[in-house]
C-alpha cells in the first residue's frame, strides 16, 4: 500500500525548500523483542510518529484447518491446544462444544463444573501473563511478568496434575473430560484460588497507580465503540471499548447461568490501552468469584458422558463458541457422514482483534505501536493457525 490512503489522516510530510525529507521505513519483526512471536509490522515513521503501519503475518501458518479435515474428529483435539498455546483448555472446550452439538451428547454435571473451573483458571493464566507482557512492552524489566509467571506456575501445576501436561493439556473430550481430577486436586485448586487475590492486590499496587504506566497507556491506541463493533472485535478488547458483550452471559453455554459474576466494561468514550489493561485486571477478580462458586458447587459423578466409540456424525453444520480469554473463539464444523469433518474452520479472536491494529496505531509514536500490539493480546499460533 503506497497510495495516499496508506498515510495517516491529516498527515502532511513537511517539505521545505532545499531540504529533502522522506519517511523512515522500519520493518519491525519478525525478529523483534516485542512482537509476541513471529509477527512483522512494516512501519513508516516520520521521526518517531507512525504514519503508516502494515501488519504482516503468516510466518507461523501450520495448515491447521486443512489438517483437521484429513483427521478424525478426536485427532484434531490436541491440535487445538496449539492454536492459542496459552489457553489450551478453552480451545479444547470450544471444539468439544461444537462437536457435542454435532452428535448431541450430554455432558455430565461434574464434567461441566470441571470445565468451568479449568476455563476460569485459564483466564487467570492468560490475563495475568498478558498484563505482565504488556508492562514488559512498556519497558519494565520483566518484573511484573515474572511475578505473573510465578503465579501462573501454580495454576500450571494444577493443570499438570489434572491432565498430565502444563500447557498442551488436551484434557477435554466429546461428552466430558478425559479423566477425572486426582484425589485432593480440588483442595489444591481451592488453595490456589484463595491465594490468588493476595497476589492480585500486590499486582495492582505495583501497576495500577504507577504514574508512568498511566501516562503511557491513557489516550494511546483508542478504539471507538463503532469501529470495535464493525470490525468484529470480541473479548476484553470489545468491553474496553464500551460494549457489554460476554458470551458467557449471552450464550450461557455449559453451566454459566448458575454462577453469580459481573462483566466489567467501560462507558466507551476512550477505549485506550489503559482500559484494555484494566478490564483484564478486573476480569480476573470475577473469574475468582466464579471459581469459588464452582469449587463449592461441584459434586461427584462421572466425567465422561456416553460418547460414541466411533465418532461418525450425521451430515450437519454447527458452530460452537466460547468466551476464550482473548475473545470469541468459535469452531465451525461441517460433517458429511464420514469420521472426518468436511470443513473445519476456526474463528480466532487474536486474528480478528488484530485487524484494527493499523487504525489504532496511526499518528501514535513508535513506542506506542508496540504497546498497542501488546494490549490487543495476540498469540501468533492462533493468528496464523
Amino acid at each position, binding site marked *: 500500500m503506497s497510495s495516499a490512503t496508506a498515510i495517516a489522516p491529516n498527515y502532511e510530510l513537511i517539505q521545505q525548500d532545499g531540504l529533502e525529507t522522506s519517511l523512515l521505513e522500519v520493518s519491525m519483526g519478525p525478529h523483534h523483542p516485542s512482537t509476541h512471536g513471529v509477527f512483522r509490522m512494516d512501519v513508516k515513521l516520520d521521526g518517531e510518529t507512525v504514519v503508516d503501519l502494515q501488519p504482516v503475518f503468516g510466518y507461523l501458518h501450520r495448515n491447521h484447518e486443512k489438517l483437521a479435515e484429513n483427521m478424525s474428529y478426536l485427532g484434531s483435539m490436541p491440535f487445538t491446544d496449539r492454536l492459542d498455546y496459552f489457553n489450551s483448555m478453552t480451545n479444547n472446550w470450544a471444539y468439544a462444544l461444537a462437536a457435542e452439538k454435532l452428535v448431541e451428547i450430554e455432558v455430565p454435571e461434574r464434567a461441566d463444573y470441571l470445565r468451568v473451573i479449568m476455563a476460569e483458571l485459564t483466564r487467570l493464566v492468560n490475563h495475568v501473563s498478558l498484563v505482565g507482557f504488556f508492562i*514488559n512492552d512498556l519497558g519494565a524489566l*520483566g518484573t511484573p511478568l515474572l511475578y505473573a509467571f510465578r503465579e501462573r506456575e501454580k495454576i500450571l501445576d494444577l493443570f499438570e496434575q489434572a491432565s498430565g501436561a502444563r500447557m498442551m493439556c488436551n484434557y477435554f473430550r466429546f461428552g466430558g473430560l478425559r479423566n477425572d481430577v486426582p484425589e485432593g486436586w480440588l483442595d489444591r485448586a481451592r488453595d490456589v484460588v484463595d491465594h490468588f487475590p493476595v497476589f492480585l492486590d500486590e499486582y495492582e499496587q505495583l501497576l495500577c497507580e504507577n504514574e508512568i504506566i498511566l501516562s503511557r497507556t491513557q489516550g494511546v491506541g483508542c478504539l471507538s465503540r463503532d469501529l470495535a463493533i464493525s470490525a468484529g472485535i470480541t473479548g476484553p478488547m470489545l468491553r474496553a471499548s464500551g460494549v457489554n458483550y460476554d458470551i458467557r452471559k449471552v450464550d450461557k453455554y455449559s453451566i454459566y447461568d448458575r454462577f453469580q459474576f*459481573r*462483566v466489567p466494561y467501560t462507558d466507551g468514550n476512550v477505549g485506550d490501552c489503559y*482500559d484494555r489493561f484494566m478490564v483484564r485486571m478486573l476480569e480476573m477478580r470475577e473469574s475468582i468469584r466464579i471459581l469459588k462458586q464452582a469449587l463449592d458447587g461441584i459434586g461427584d459423578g462421572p466425567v465422561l458422558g456416553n460418547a460414541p466409540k466411533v465418532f461418525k456424525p450425521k451430515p450437519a453444520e454447527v458452530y460452537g463458541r466460547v468466551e476464550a480469554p482473548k475473545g470469541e473463539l468459535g469452531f465451525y464444523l461441517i460433517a458429511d457422514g464420514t469420521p472426518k469433518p468436511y470443513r473445519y474452520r476456526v474463528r480466532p479472536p487474536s486474528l480478528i482483534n488484530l485487524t484494527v491494529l493499523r487504525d489504532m496505531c496511526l499518528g501514535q509514536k513508535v*513506542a506506542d505501536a508496540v504497546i498497542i500490539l501488546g494490549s490487543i493480546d495476540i498469540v501468533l499460533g492462533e493468528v496464523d493457525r
Partner: protein
Amino acid sequence: MSLELIRDILVATVPLLLIFPTLFAFTTWLERKALARIQNRIGPNKVGVPLTRYGGRFSLFGLGQPMADGIKMLFKENIVPRDADRLFHLLAPILALIPAMLVLCFLPIDFPWINNIQDSVKAFMLDGAVIFFFAITGLNTLAVFMAGWASRNKYSLLGGMRAIAQMVSYEIPLVLSAVIVVMMVGSLNAAEIANAQAGWNWFIFTPWGLAAFIIFFIAALAETNRSPFDLPEAESEIIAGYFTEYSGFKFALFFLGEYIAMFAISGLAVTLFLGGGAGPGVAALPWLSVIWFLVKIFALIAVMIWLRGTLPRLRVDQLMGFAWKFLLPLSILNIFIAGSALHLLAGGRLAGLDEKQPILRQLMEGANPLVVAGLWIGALLILYVAANGLNQLSRAKVRPREYKYAE
C-alpha cells in the same frame, strides 16, 4: 615535563583505571543479582572460582560471572555490518569510554596515595572542576550518536536521535541543580565543595539541597540512560538502540562506558550533595573517607537498580516534556528559593541566625528551631505545590478510572 610530574600523573590516574573497571565488574554482578531477587529469581550463581576444577562447587554466589562475561566478550566475533561506516563504528565505543573515564579524575576521593603528589595534577582541585565535569560528560552524546549513525541500522539511528535529544535536554536540569551547591559554597572546586560538607553538613540536609538532589538524581538517570529513561536502548521498541549492531568487545566497551558514567555521575552527586567522603569516623581514620565515598556511590547505584526493577519506560515526548516542562522550571524555582533564603540568612535578617557562623551548621543545629523548621516547610511546600501544578498542567487527564459492571 619532569620525571616527578609523570610519576605524579601516573599515581593519580592509574589506580582509577584499575579500581573503577573492577567495581564495574562487581556492579554488573550486583545488578543482576539484585534484579533477580526483585523478580524472585536467584540470579547468577553458577560460575565459581575460575580455572579450577572446583569452579562449580565453590560458586561464591556467582561472583565469577563478570569474569566469565568478560572472557566471553573478548572472544566473541567482532561483527561490522557491511554498509556500516567502519571507522566511526570502531571509534564510537572508544569515544564512549574515554570521557567516562576522564571525569573520574574530578571526583574528590582521598585515596591515601594521592596525598603525596603535587596539587597541580589533582583534577578535582581545579578551580572549574564541576564545569569541566559537565563539559566532558557532554562528549558522551557524540559517541552515542556516532554509534547510531555509523551502524547504518534504522533502530540504531532512532536510538542515536533519541539519545541526543535526551542527553542535551537533561544536561540543563542537571547543571542547574548543581548550581545550588555552587551558590552555597561559592566555588566550583570539587575538593572545596566536599570539604565544605565535612561532618554532617551535607547539602542534602538543606531544603533546597534536598530538592536539588532529587532533580539531580532524576536527570542523572536520564544522562546515563538508566531506566525509566533508557529510551536510547529501549529493548521493547528499538531492539538495543544505538548498540544494536555492536557485538563482542566493542559492545563490552559501551557497556563499560555506561557503567563508568554511572559511577562518575553518582560520584558527582555524592560530592555535591552527600558530603563527599564525610561520614562517621573519618576524623579519626582518614582512609575511611574513601570507603564512605564508595559506599555512597553504591547506595545511589542500588537505588538506580531498584528503579530499574520497578519502573517501565517513558515515551519520547513525555521524556522531553518532563525535562523542559517539569524539571527545568522546578530547578529554576529552586535556585530562586535558595538564592532568596541564602540572601536573607547571610544578611542576618532572620532572627536567631548568626551571619558569622556557617549557615549550614545553623540550619542543622539551628539557633532557632522555628526558623529552621519554617525554612524547611516553606521551601519544600513551595516546591511541592509548584511541582504539583506543573504536573497538573502537563498531564491533567491522566488518572485512574472507574469501571462499570454488568450483572
